[in-house]
């Protein structure tokens, strides 16, 4: 405990250095903007700015602080385009659209933005606190999470997401199946055999997650907007001055606590990240709290849950990277590269060899979270005004930004055609009343489920009992059953009353 307090003290001394403080603010602000752009998310923000940070000749701790600021700034910013435009900037922000955008359409954009900023703040801060208290302990637990445990986690995720089954179960299942099909395209991670690539070399490596998100959600939404405009169904939105209220915060407090915990836990696992975290948090919250069917129609709890979770996951992903040198996500893999560039090796030794970097970074994350809240709340009004830009200007602008964003990441023209194709597909699915969220879920969870199931069976040489031979997996299966049954019980109980 003493080492933690001393370390944090030294860390805050580094982070409060005026120059570093400025870098935290610059990083958070730039990150928010990058995250807000459709197509650009934390991973590309950090990747694009890494060479710049290195080129500036900053001391190691300052450069890392700047990059980390961009990382969680982008996690914050991702919610903006999701809420306002129904266009998620990256995978972790898909679930923010489900209740965030309906709130904006009801004229509560300001309320949604400020509420989600607070949820993000709590999720992020929760993660940093847990990280500074139990970091090394949690990391050594996270690596023992075996492929069979991941399988159990995916079962839990599917169970919690059973709640997404809307009015039409068949359509939901078909949509999920479509996601599974998309996930199976490309070289099979296990055997190296090309699946469903039809001889097209561009899809040998599979379809990039970003391409699916931007295509199915972003482009489909834009096509939908154009259609509405042409058919004259477009309603002009008034400038709304709504803001989060104290009652809102009381309403969402348990959603935030639960989701922060879920997000952090999923974040520290090396194989899963913000996208799985926000999905599971949303599903669980809907399972537990959606008693009146308000989720998906602008329920503040449905907005707070994924936002708290994806920011907590971003913090959680730092844990194995800092304490063991194992990156838990794409973004932390790039941050790990940044450390190595400065000849610093993340791992237990870093806390003794470079305490100014290790603790300085952790302290800057506390400051960064506060800074993001301070930056974001006053900007809510300005962002909300974006909705008053006439759609005929806004729609093409977003389309152009999305294309540039995606191209800057994939730099392959083929993927741009892919986005258009998926966009048309998404639009058709919407016309036919198919829910889109299950497609994304099938895509993310299906791939992870398959990979880990096959890994587990390779480890056990084909013995299926490996799936239930650890306490972790048994607990997760238990939770899956509880999550699946809770709403049934609640309904019965209410029926009796």
């Amino acid at each position, binding site marked *: 405990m003493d080492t933690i307090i001393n370390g944090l003290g030294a860390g805050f001394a580094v982070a409060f250095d005026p120059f570093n403080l400025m870098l935290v603010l610059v990083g958070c602000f730039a990150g928010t903007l990058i995250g807000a752009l459709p197509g650009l998310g934390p991973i590309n923000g950090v*990747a694009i700015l890494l060479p710049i940070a290195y080129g500036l000749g900053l001391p190691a701790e300052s450069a890392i602080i700047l990059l980390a600021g961009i990382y969680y700034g982008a996690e914050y910013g991702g919610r903006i385009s999701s809420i306002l435009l129904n266009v998620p900037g990256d995978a972790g922000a898909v679930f923010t659209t489900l209740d965030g955008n309906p709130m904006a359409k009801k004229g509560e954009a300001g309320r949604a933005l400020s509420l989600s900023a607070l949820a993000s703040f709590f999720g992020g801060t929760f993660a940093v606190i847990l990280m500074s208290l139990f970091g090394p302990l949690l990391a*050594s637990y*996270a*690596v*023992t*999470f*075996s*492929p069979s445990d991941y399988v159990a986690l995916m079962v839990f995720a599917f169970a919690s997401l059973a709640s997404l089954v809307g009015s039409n179960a068949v359509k939901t299942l078909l949509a999920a199946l479509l996601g599974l099909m998309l996930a199976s395209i490309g*070289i*099979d*991670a*296990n*055997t*190296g055999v*090309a699946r469903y690539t039809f*001889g097209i*070399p*561009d*899809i*040998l*490596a599979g379809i990039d997650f970003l391409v699916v998100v931007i295509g199915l959600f972003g482009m489909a939404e834009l096509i939908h907007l154009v259609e509405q405009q042409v058919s004259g169904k477009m309603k002009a939105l008034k400038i709304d001055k709504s803001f989060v209220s104290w009652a809102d915060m009381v309403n969402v407090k348990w959603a935030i606590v639960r989701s922060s915990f879920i997000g952090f836990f999923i974040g520290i696992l*090396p*194989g899963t990240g913000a996208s799985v975290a926000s999905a599971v948090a949303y599903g669980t919250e809907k399972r537990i709290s959606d008693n009146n069917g308000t989720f998906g129609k602008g329920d503040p709890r449905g907005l707070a849950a994924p936002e708290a979770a994806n920011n907590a996951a971003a913090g959680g992903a730092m844990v*194995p990277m800092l304490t*063991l*040198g*194992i*990156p*838990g996500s794409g973004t932390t*893999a*790039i941050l*790990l*590269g940044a450390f*190595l560039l400065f000849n610093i*090796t*993340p*791992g*237990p*030794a870093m806390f003794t060899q470079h305490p100014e970097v290790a603790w300085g970074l952790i302290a800057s994350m506390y400051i960064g979270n506060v800074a993001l809240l301070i930056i974001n709340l006053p900007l809510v009004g300005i962002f909300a005004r974006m909705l008053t830009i006439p759609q005929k200007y806004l729609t093409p602008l977003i389309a152009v930004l999305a294309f540039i964003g995606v191209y800057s*990441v*994939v*730099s*392959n023209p*083929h993927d741009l055609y892919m986005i258009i194709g998926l966009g048309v597909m998404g639009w058709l699915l919407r016309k036919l009343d198919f829910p889109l969220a299950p497609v994304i879920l099938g895509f993310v969870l299906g791939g992870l489920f398959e*990979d880990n199931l*096959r*890994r587990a069976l*390779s*480890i056990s*040489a084909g013995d299926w009992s490996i799936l239930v031979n650890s306490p972790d997996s048994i607990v997760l299966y238990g939770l899956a059953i509880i999550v699946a049954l809770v709403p049934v019980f609640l309904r019965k109980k209410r029926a009796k009353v």
Partner: protein
Amino acid sequence: MNFKKFSTILAVSLTLAAPAFAGPIDRPECIAPAKPGGGFDLTCRVAQSGLKAQMEKPIQVTFMPGGVGAVAINLFNTTRTDDDNAIVAFSSGSLLNMATGKYGEWKESDVRFLASVGADFGAIVVPEDSRFKSLDDLMAAAEKDLKSIVVGAGGSIGSQDWMKAALLLGSRQLSPRDMRYVAFDGGGESIAALLGGSIEVYMGDVGELVSHVGEGKLRILAVMSPERIGAPFADIPTAIELGYDAEWTILRGFYMGKNVSDEAYNAWVEAFEAAYETEEFATIQKEKGLLPLNMAGAELNASILERVAKMRDIARGAGLID
């Protein structure tokens, strides 16, 4: 010596001394067949900064992702087969794809291998508290009951990582088909699985292990290089010196289109050979985490053909290809 003779000698010697100024390469371009930030990007960056003195104009780096290099090799076999200005980055992974037919009809004979910029090597890694204290322990256990050992790595069956394990087993006439092999998504996940006890042996690369040496959590049983490598790996034996004929060199370098002019090809080769001699090139190589392995032109080509043939043999032996 008359003036004519003098000027001829001057012209010839100038051509030899500074071939890059001579003409065929006027817009040098390095194609990294991947997204920015990966190994191919790094390969191009070594050429870009390492050949500064040898090139009249700086080398531009272009990214051409898609199909782990398949998009680029397609282009250089269809439209840009005679582009004198462009060099394309490749790695041993690309060679393996050629050997196992992952690039469709394109094989090692469809490109002209130009030069290498360095290498990385395979490494056999176990946790510090593993039951295997040496490579001999591991191989004795493997010969007794191969199915009792769980091996993992960051690539699929048939990938470079898998090849390392297959080669090691092959040195004792064990079949890779009997191996319990677990494919993870990259080195990070594999090392996590190794530390967490899901797998017992990890087939890694020397370069990625720099950050784990001396941390007291992992033990490198052997490196798969032809000779011992420098600090911090100097104390680690090679598999070959322990009596296992298993070498895995991850080569990084460039190829050009099949129909480029000999003039341009030779100019590039000479530029690389000149750069190899300089201190700057060695420094850049080291900075980018590569170990020296400098070969250009015919020497490289011969070495690669031999490697690809060997890869094809292993893949065939394991039933991956016919």
